């Protein structure tokens, strides 16, 4: 098996992803259905949180993908800056809306999950606040792609923005933790904190297995959508190039 850089060739990328897409999509659908149905119908309620714990099967996977999507965009941006493979830049562009939607889902489920406990529809909990800021970074990134006409310029500018944004996103996470922790140790009300190891509680296996299946499903969904959307971006870019050539004739 030769190097992964083969797939930097747009045609080869499209050919390969065309073959992979049905399988990845099927996996995505299967795993998500399995994980969510199992979690929704066949797990018990939590002692303290009641049935709201079922939100975990969507909240945690979406939050994980929201972060991973940005991480993938960061890697793809670096690949573009260093090796100038168009597929990489376009893959980053393709991934951004997916990440943004995941962030919204994480925010919505996080807020709904917390409402019975907080009594309000929103709390400036450090975790949720960080996701809100991440959403703004996604918006800015997507907006910059749309605002620039020249494809290479757009790829260059957005990749630099992604790099700088990543640093600031990490910095903001620390700042927000500092901002809301104040004098009291932030007692994270959300069970999700337990999964990340914030508290000593560990999620028992009853919840963990369908959760991991659901997370795997979300990951497959992300991959399938990135394949599909990157193909679209490659084709759109080719079309713009052809149209430009037409106009010059």
């Amino acid at each position, binding site marked *: 098996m030769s190097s992964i850089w083969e797939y930097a060739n747009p045609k080869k990328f499209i050919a390969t992803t065309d073959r992979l897409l049905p399988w990845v999509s099927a996996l995505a659908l299967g795993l998500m259905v399995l994980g969510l149905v199992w979690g929704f119908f066949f797990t018990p309620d939590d002692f303290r949180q009641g049935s709201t714990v079922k939100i975990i099967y969507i909240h945690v996977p979406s939050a994980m993908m929201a972060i991973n999507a940005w991480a993938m965009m960061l890697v793809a941006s670096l690949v573009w800056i260093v090796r100038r493979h168009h597929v990489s830049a376009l893959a980053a562009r393709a991934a951004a809306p997916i990440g943004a*939607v995941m962030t919204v889902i994480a925010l919505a489920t996080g807020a*709904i*999950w917390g409402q019975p406990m907080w009594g309000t529809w929103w709390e400036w909990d450090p975790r949720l606040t960080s996701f809100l800021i991440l959403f703004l970074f996604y918006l800015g990134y997507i907006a910059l792609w749309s605002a620039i006409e020249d494809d290479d310029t757009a790829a260059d500018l957005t990749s630099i923005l992604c790099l700088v944004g990543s640093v600031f996103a990490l910095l903001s996470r620390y700042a927000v933790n500092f901002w809301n922790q104040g004098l009291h140790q932030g007692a994270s009300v959300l069970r999700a904190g337990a999964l990340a190891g914030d508290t000593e509680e560990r999620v028992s296996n009853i919840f963990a297995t369908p959760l991991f299946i659901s997370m795997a499903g979300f990951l497959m969904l992300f991959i399938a959508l990135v394949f599909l959307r990157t*193909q679209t971006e490659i084709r759109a870019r*080719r079309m713009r190039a052809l149209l430009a050539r037409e106009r010059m004739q």
Partner: protein
Amino acid sequence: MPDLGKYAEAVLSSYAISLGLIVALVVLSVLRARKVKAQLAEVEARGKTGGKAQEQADG
């Protein structure tokens, strides 16, 4: 449907919103993919006929 108790609204609405957003994302991605694929094929076909099809269409 398991007995969701007093949190039924919360749980169901969060599932509905999330799955709704995912479905919307998938649908929009697929629709755009098809549209761009068709448009590209059209532009490429125009190129192959050496622009004559374009001239005929304009004339």
